[in-house]
């Protein structure tokens, strides 16, 4: 398998420099663009495996880049934005972004996000291969509908199970409340965000050692949830 290709659309040269150093050091091939327009062209010509887009670009909104890219490709898009802009993040995710990172972020976080994105691209092409999801002491057997924590079988209600499997499906990626509600309760329940929170609390009490300090079922305040993937 050739080295994965990453396109970075970011107007700050220092951040581009940091991304280049980190990603190239891990064997990724990196292509950079400092404007949205250049970035769209770059994506079209390089056929990347992952795209990283800053939301604040000089020539166009990062959201606009995502919308244009989504017209012709399903390439994973990771959005860069600052903390305190939760609404922007949700909008970006709704517009088709796959994940986001809050500035400032560390190299570890960056690589983890990119890895998750690549894994999901790979997963999409080999659908049905992974029927067992394992992270830490948590094991979810999708084929046999079995959930175990540290080897102990855990009994889940149907909704709890559906919630968990939805998160497993997007493991490592953020899933917005809306998304969860739509997938678990159906499109008519997208306004009842507290459903998801209440069931998530149930799930934590069943799966986590310390529900108030979760290890697997992480909260992204103002955005949604993320199931730890590594």
């Amino acid at each position, binding site marked *: 398998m050739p080295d994965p290709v990453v396109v970075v659309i970011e107007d700050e040269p220092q951040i581009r420099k940091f991304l280049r150093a980190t990603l190239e050091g891990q064997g990724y091939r990196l292509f950079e663009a400092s404007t949205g327009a250049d970035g769209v062209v770059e994506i079209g010509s390089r056929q990347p495996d992952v795209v990283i887009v800053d939301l604040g670009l000089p020539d166009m909104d990062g959201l606009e880049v995502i919308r244009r890219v989504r017209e012709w490709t399903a390439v994973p898009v990771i959005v860069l934005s600052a903390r305190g802009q939760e609404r922007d993040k949700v909008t970006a995710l709704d517009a088709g972004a796959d994940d986001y990172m809050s500035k400032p972020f560390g190299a570890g976080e960056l690589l983890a996000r990119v890895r998750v994105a690549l894994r999901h691209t790979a997963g999409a092409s080999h659908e049905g291969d992974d029927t067992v999801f394992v992270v830490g002491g948590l094991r979810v057997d999708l084929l046999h509908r079995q959930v175990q924590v540290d080897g102990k079988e855990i009994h889940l209600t149907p909704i*709890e199970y559906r919630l968990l499997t939805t998160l497993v499906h997007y493991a490592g990626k953020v899933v917005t409340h809306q998304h969860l509600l739509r997938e678990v309760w159906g499109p008519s329940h997208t306004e009842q965000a*507290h459903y998801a*929170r209440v069931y998530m609390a149930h799930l*934590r009490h069943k799966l986590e050692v310390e529900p*108030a300090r979760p290890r697997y079922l992480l909260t*992204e305040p*103002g955005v949604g949830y993320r199931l730890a993937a590594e």
Partner: protein
Amino acid sequence: MRAGPGRYTRAVGTDRPDPEALLARVKAEEARQRRGKLKIFLGAAAGVGKTYAMLEAVREQKADGVDAVAGYVETHGRAETDALLAGLEILPPKTVDYRGTALREFDLDAALARHPTLILVDELAHTNAPGLRHAKRWQDVVELLDAGINVYTTMNVQHLETLNDIVAKITGVVVRETVPDSVFEQADEVELIDLPPDELLERFKDGKVYIPDQAQEAVKNFFRKGNLIALRELALRRTAERVDAQMRLYMHEHAIGKAWPTAERLLVCISPGPESARLVRAGKRMADRLGAPWVAAYVETPAQLRLPPEVRDRVTQTLRLAEQLGAETVRLPGQKMSEAILAFAHDRNVTKIVVGKPRRRLWTRILIGSIVDALVQGSGDIDIYVISAEREQHGVPPAPVRRRAIPSDWVPYGWAMAVVALATGAAWLTLPFFELANQVMVYLLGIVVVATRYGRGPSLMASILSVAVLDFLFVPPVFTFAVSDVRYLFTFVVMLIVGLVTSSLAARIRMQAEAARQREQRTAALYAMSRELASTRGLEELLKIAVRHISEVFRSQVVVLLPGTGGESLVSSSCGQFTVDSNELGVAKWVHEHHQPAGLGTSTLPGATALYLSLQAPRGPVGVLGIRPADRHALDSPDQLHQLETFSNQTALAIERANLADEAQQAQVRIETERLRNSLLSSVSHDLRTPLATIKGAATTMLDSGSKLDAPTQKELLESVREEADRLNRLVQNLLEMTRLESGALQLRREWHPLEEVVGSALSRLGKELADRRVDTHVPPDLPLVPIDDVLIEQVLVNLLDNAVKYTPASSPIRILATSTDEAVTVEIADHGPGLPRGDEDKVFEKFYRGLPGGRGAGLGLAISQGIVKAHGGHIWAQNLPEGGVAFLFTLPLAGKPPASVPADA
């Protein structure tokens, strides 16, 4: 012998002008410096050449380079005068349409806009056409002077207010256009244009004196040598008096001479008669000569309350005239005129009383005595001046014969009849038992009852009716008005007199009670308003109270206009009871700028629908009070005006108080902001630079000598770079959050959250810092959902936990505890650190508070937490724990409708 220092001081005090007076003079001098200078060219009669002299004077000024403009000049087509106008800038006159005639008038606004150094305005005594701002041209001139423009003007001596009646007496011509003496006296220069009467007559015969056509005949009578000599004398004397006054002022200013005028005070007694105006003018002249303050007093006896409205209006006009001439005016309530006057005079140390010669007929004077006699008897050391009070044949029309006002209400008369009928019934029933004398008593009782309840008219009727009925029914021969026994006639007469006296007494008492009640009511109203104003804060509330009270007391619609925050222009207050349209606003603006009343009932802009008073506070005008009475003439009496002034003064003081409080608060806020800005700058620059220094230091070390360092040192350096970057990030985050909180840009996005989840995400965000800590979290599983913005509450938790980490020994445990009631959820974060310094439990929430000197962080975290919790409607506080350490607690109210319960699944 004792010669105490007190006596010495007193002796000095009498020799020197007192400092208050000096200060007043200095202030007056300053005001005079800013004011324009007024020069009056005074003549004895028309045609002496005033306009000519004035124009010549202006030409000289113009030649000296003074910016002089002719504002309004009547040349009456005289060629030599026209010639002098040539080369002068002439302001175009304002044309006013008055009943189909186009009148040319002086254009005040154009003059103010042009703002020359010197302006000519001919004929100071001119009456302006209706519709102009002022009723009189001298008011225009005063406004020009106030604006700092020098004015040259002309007038004839007959137009002086106080000489008005003398001139009328000499010439037989009444001059209606008058100029108040105060304007004349305040003139900086008066130049007398003198022309011997013979020469003037010559000019008159040659047709060189302009006379309007319609006045031809009257003027011919006027221009007689005798008249002209008398007028010339008046003009010369008046000018001489002015010179004399100037000299006295000079002496005063330079403290020449020891004998200051003794403290004279003049009291002029005004009667309802038409001659009072004369009395007032005479009083003014006397007061001037004495250099004494003077008071014009009108005694309101119960009898005068019944005078017809025209007569009472005349009293009002006379009082107003006195006020214009510089008098203080008072209305004294009283039973007897002389008593009230003397009481007031003694009270105010009046030294001279001026009264009119009584016009009562001889026999009434003998019977009742005259006021003058009573005054003289009771005056003690007060001088009494009696001035002939002959009727003026002109001027104010004579008082109409007193008409008994037709009672608009017949009900009291009906009651009077009913009472008589009742008395008759009672008398009839008791006839077999009582003598006739007792029946008389029954009727008298009836009369007294009617008198006390219904006043004079009905009781008069009751008296006459009673006598008639008594005669008809009870006095033999009954059922006729004839009387058999002459003694009964005596009974009737006595009964009638008793009835009349009783009714008049009762009526008088009623009247006095009514007058007292009105005064009492006003005093009470004023007291009520001041009390309410004193206990109120906030301009809006104060205005509402003032408007309500004034409107109630004066039965009017009231509005208060305040200057806008930025400029001078007035804005209508939100609590006005009528809207002020742009015309009215113009009037109000004029009032605000000139600090004088205008509008309805005044001589300035009388066309307005409301009266406007400047609200004068000690530091200057604070606004304008507009009052629109239900009855247009309700505010005409000086008494009412004084009362209104008292109310408006109270209002002005209240507004000023509110303004001052506001200013003080703003100053406080400014100081506070300044202090904050300073501490923010020092704090932020310190907190930004410290991590930057570390980062820069570590990075440069790695660059310069990275290869020489061993691996652990390199790692240590890099670790510190990462830590400091995190710290910087938190600081920036807090600064941003603070800015959002303070700019009001913070918007809560409340949703129903399980608290555990928020606590959980806060703990994971602080993962690294909390790595070596035991955190005991007690969030009960049955804790209700709370309506919060999870991002912000997470920030609060992070700040509180971060604080706990920062200020407590490493590895000491931290406790998080959540409890709930029906109303709120309380979250407690407790540590085992040193606790807060005693008394700092509240201060910690202030911005830039730091627990320890040199402590890390900008001191923003707790302030932000407080802001966020308050935005949620909760509160946050800190308390030292008995077992050591400190607990921070905050509540989150469970406000709003909880969400629909989550459907359970099997």
